[in-house]
Structure formats: structure tokens, C-alpha cells
């Protein structure tokens, strides 16, 4: 008898399920570079139990976890895959929570020191919000998607490193403020702090991952690349830009890069995924490259070097 039979028989996990969860959690943390939970120096057995306790105690999500496994596992291997995806997604969400928090704090600090923005107190708009200096302060009541689209329309804004400590880099500062400005311009009024933060998080792929489905967009968080160094002063600008973009790509995106423009079925075979998913990933990567290079005068050189990286660093 294994964990699958245990859950099927009782509708709840017991010793076998606990044992399997511990084994798989250890496997996931060994394969990636996730930090252990607060209070632990490394991934020992207490840290693993702490991780699993936190994962299962999330309000609402814990109950869904066993129910999803109960309903969708058809045998022991499929149960293991569900466990692995759920644990991996939880860890990715934890990894994202640090930059998410950092982003909110940085955004507030940056907007406070930029004269283009003005704070609208809760006494005026009913909730703490931001507006453009000299512009209207009426709180945005429309659909958030309108503001999200404005955020996505900002070209050339990308953030390749979240783990650097110290002051915010110029590129990151420019990117964050460009998005905030575009959102407030579109709103023609004030926008709640939390809405601006959510839009910026969405724009830079920092949203909470799904519970049970592994997305390529989140695989970047399995093993975030080291911060890109500024490199030697004589480094060609297009090479530096290509390296920056490369650092932002997930492993799947790097594999997909040489196949851009091919039919979804061909890409699906290369990546061993479904054709619809392949089409979405291909379109998303093209959009990502467009966003990253559209205002770049040396765009062709950047893209050329980027494609070269696919061969040099498979």
C-alpha cells in the first residue's frame, strides 16, 4: 500500500502520505536553490516539516490540496507528480514573496522621491493612492484590465535581477517608474496603492503561481539566475543587453528561442508539451523580446547575439 491507496481509502493523508511528501519535498529543494524557511540554516528534516506545515496551513489552499490529489491522482506516480507540482509552486510563491514585498517597498520609496507623482491621502480618495502631479485625483473606478494593458504597453522595461541588495539599480528604477507613470496616465486620476502594486507585479511576472499546475513562467523561480554584473566598461552595449535578456529567460524559453516562428506542432515536439501551450509560449516569448528590444537602436545585434547564446550555452 502506498500514499495513493491511503488517500483513496480514507480521503485524508496518513503516515504513508506524510512520508511521501517529506521525500518529494527533499527532492524538490535539492534540485533547486530555494532558501529554507525562516529560522532554519539549511534543509534539514525540521525545515522540510516546517515547509509542508506552512504549505498545508494556507487558508483554503490546504483543503484543496488533498481534494485535488484525491480527485485527480489515478495511481501512485500521478499522485507523486501532483505532490511535486504543488510543493514546487508553493516554493516558487515563497521565492516570489521576497521580491514582491521588496517591489512594494521600493515602488513607494521611488514614487515618493519622484516629483512626477503625488500622494493622495485616504481622507481625499477613501484609500491611500497615487496620482500624477497636477493631475486629477478622482479615484479610478474602472476595470483594472484597462490599467494592466497600459502597463504592458510600456516597451523596453525589464527587470533581470531581484536579488541584489542595496540601492535599486537605474534600470529597475526606470522600469518601475515607467510602469507606474503609464498606469496613472491611463487612469487620469488616482489609483490605489494595492492596485498599482498588483499591476506592476503582473507586469514583471511576480504573481502567485497556480496551486497544482506548473507554468513555464514560474520555472524561472526554480533557480533564479545570479544578478548580471555590469561587466567590463569596454563590453559592447548590444552584448550586454543580450546577456541581460538571456538572464531573464526560463530554461524552456532558452530552448524555444531557436524555434521561434515554427508551427506550434513542431515546437510542441521539441519541448514535449501540447501544441496549444507551445503556441502560447512562442507568442509570449516573441512579445517578451519585442518588449525588451523595441526601443533599442542596436536591436538586430542584440537579437543576433541572443540567438548565438542558444548555441553557445545550450
Amino acid at each position, binding site marked *: 500500500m502506498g500514499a495513493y491507496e491511503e*488517500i483513496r481509502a480514507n*480521503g*485524508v*493523508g*496518513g503516515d504513508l*502520505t*506524510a512520508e511521501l*511528501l517529506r521525500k518529494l519535498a527533499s527532492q524538490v529543494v535539492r534540485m533547486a536553490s530555494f532558501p529554507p524557511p*525562516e*529560522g*532554519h540554516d539549511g534543509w534539514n528534516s*525540521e*525545515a522540510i*516539516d*516546517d515547509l*509542508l*506545515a506552512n504549505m*498545508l*496551513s494556507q487558508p*483554503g489552499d*490546504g*483543503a*484543496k*490540496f*488533498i*481534494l485535488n490529489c*484525491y*480527485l*485527480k491522482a*489515478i495511481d501512485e506516480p*500521478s499522485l507523486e507528480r501532483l505532490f511535486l507540482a504543488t510543493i514546487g509552486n508553493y516554493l516558487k510563491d*515563497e521565492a516570489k*514573496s*521576497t521580491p514582491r*514585498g521588496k517591489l512594494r517597498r521600493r515602488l513607494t520609496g521611488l514614487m515618493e522621491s519622484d516629483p512626477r507623482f503625488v500622494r493622495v491621502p485616504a481622507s481625499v480618495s477613501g484609500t491611500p493612492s497615487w496620482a500624477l502631479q497636477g493631475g486629477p485625483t478622482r479615484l479610478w473606478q474602472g476595470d*483594472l*484590465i484597462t490599467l*494592466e*494593458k497600459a502597463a*504592458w504597453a510600456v516597451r523596453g522595461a525589464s527587470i533581470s535581477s531581484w536579488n541584489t541588495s542595496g540601492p535599486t539599480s537605474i534600470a529597475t528604477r526606470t522600469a518601475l517608474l515607467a510602469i507606474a507613470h503609464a498606469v496613472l496616465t491611463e487612469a487620469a486620476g488616482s489609483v490605489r496603492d494595492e492596485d498599482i502594486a498588483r499591476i506592476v507585479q*503582473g*507586469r514583471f*511576472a511576480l*504573481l502567485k503561481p*497556480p496551486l*497544482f*499546475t506548473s*507554468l513555464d*513562467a*514560474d520555472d524561472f523561480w526554480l533557480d533564479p539566475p545570479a544578478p548580471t554584473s555590469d561587466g567590463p566598461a569596454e563590453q559592447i552595449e548590444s552584448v550586454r543587453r543580450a546577456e541581460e535578456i538571456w538572464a531573464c529567460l526560463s530554461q524552456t524559453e532558452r530552448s524555444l528561442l531557436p524555434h521561434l516562428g515554427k508551427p506550434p506542432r513542431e515546437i510542441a515536439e521539441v519541448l514535449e508539451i*501540447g501544441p*496549444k*501551450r507551445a503556441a*502560447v*509560449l512562442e*507568442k*509570449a516569448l*516573441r*512579445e*517578451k523580446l519585442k518588449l525588451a528590444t523595441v526601443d533599442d537602436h542596436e536591436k538586430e545585434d542584440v537579437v543576433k547575439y541572443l540567438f548565438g547564446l542558444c548555441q553557445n550555452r545550450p
Partner: protein
Amino acid sequence: MELVPCATGGVRDMTEVNESAESRFLAALKVAVAPPSVSSSFDAPPPTPAPGQIWRANWASVVELVLIRNVVGSNVSLVPASLDTDYADEATLVLSEDETSLSVSVAIWTGLERTLPMRILDRFVGRVFSDVTDSHWVFRAIEAERGVLGRLAGNPSDPLCEFRAIIEDSLDELAETALIPEGDNRLGSLIASSTLDMDALSRLLSIPIQQAFNLRRGQSPATGDQAELLAEHLGISVNEVLEANPSLPEGLITCLSDPHRRNQVYQLSILRQIPEPEAWSAAGYGTYALAARQTGEVEEPAWNERLDAYFNGILGRSQ
């Protein structure tokens, strides 16, 4: 009490971390229970598929939760469902936890509705408490505050697009793998053009001459076992032999697609160590071949009785 900072900005009591990681984990695991209404449905004999029911679709290792909106013959009009609700798109209705028997919020992907063969339904899971046959049911559910729609993808890079595409790929795969080979009735000519005369065919398949005669004239289909022997002799694949069979009668397809038969198909797949879709085809052609031998082509056999006889013969009465 020793407090340490958390990534989320708060603080955490270290005594809680040190002393109770194991007990917190085991306690959390103990309270994460599938609702009793779900576990009792899941293992009970399945109901007849009907609108409003949530089922697990499972075919050729593809597994999805689905909501039935309509039943037409041996097909069901269905909508995929997921417990992951944060990635619902603008056409997806997220029902609150009181609106289904699952007692958790569920995303109903109403924009991805399609019609698929009923045989993909594997287990009855629960039901939605709304009349889903009403063409405006989504609108009514929103109006009555029983659910909300998801969000529009902001851009092609929005991970919501990938999430939706994964569900679409699963549905496509279910549709593709659940297709029954359309028999083109070429089996007779395939055999006739080979070196197999009537005696050799009878010996090869260990069947009486009369049955060999029916096979060679294309009046009777080859069973899964016979297809394997013929495939080897003719130098073609088993599927090619099965596809050369006469098409399965619609009445037989309907009876064998009923979820009540699913457990028998599963048992057959275990017994023969073959995938369930293959076991389904073997049961279909096995029953058809048996019926063709016994009744000829003059009348539509009582397929459920024939299927009972087929499964009883192979699985025994203890099934």
C-alpha cells in the same frame, strides 16, 4: 519568546518553529480531508450522466475535472473545471464554495465547452447547484452573486494564457485518444489478398471454419486477440487490422460508453495488462464479433446483455 523576521514582513515565534514543525505538519495533514460527500460519490456506483454533474474525465492518462452541460446519445457536452481558481480567464465562472458539493471554490471554464464521447467519464465527483442547461446560466449565477468571472489576460505573456492552453491541450488529447477507429471494412480483402486460405485462417486464430469464413467475407470483425495474430501474419500493426474491421454499431458504442461499464473496462485492462483505451476497443470488437457469430446481421442485438456475457466470460462473475 524569540522572534525572527518573515519574508512577508511580519515576525515569527522561533519556539513555534523549533518545537512543533513535525506536529504542525502532521496536524495540518490530518485536517486536510476530502469532503465526505465527495468520497462517498467517488466510490459508489456512478449515476447516469446528467447535466450539472461534475465528473473526473480520464482517458489514456489524461485527467481533467469536467462539468456536464448536456448529454446527447453517447456524447456529453462538457466544460472543464479546476480547483485552481486564481487563473480563471474572463469567460470562466468561479463558483463559490457553497455552489457545488465539493465545498471549495471551483473554476468552470465555460469558454472551453466541447462535446466529447461519454466513455472518457471515469468517476462521479459531485454536482453544481445551478441549472446549467439554461443557456444564460453563467449570467444568472453572476447576477445572483453565486460566482464571478475571472480576468482578461493583460498580454500574450500573461501566465493565464499558458494555464488555459494546458487545459485546452488536455481536452484536445482527450478528444483525439477517445476517437474510435472508423472501421473501413477492408478486413475481408486484406485476408483475401494474403496467403491465408480458410483452413490456415481457422488454424491461425483457433476458430471454426464458419467463423473464418465470416471474417474473410468481412461479415464479422476481428477481436483484439485475433487482430494481434493477424497483424503479425500480415506484417501490419494491430491498429491497422482493427481499423479494417466493420465499424462498431452505434448501439454497442452507446452501451459500452456508459460509465457503469468503466470499471469492467478497467478490470480488463489490468487482466490483460493493456491501456484502458485498448481494453475498451477489445471489449467492443470482442462483443461485436461474438454477436455477429450468434445472430448474423439480421437484427440489432441486445448490446447490454452481450456486454454482460462478454465481461462475465472474461472477468468472471466476481467482478
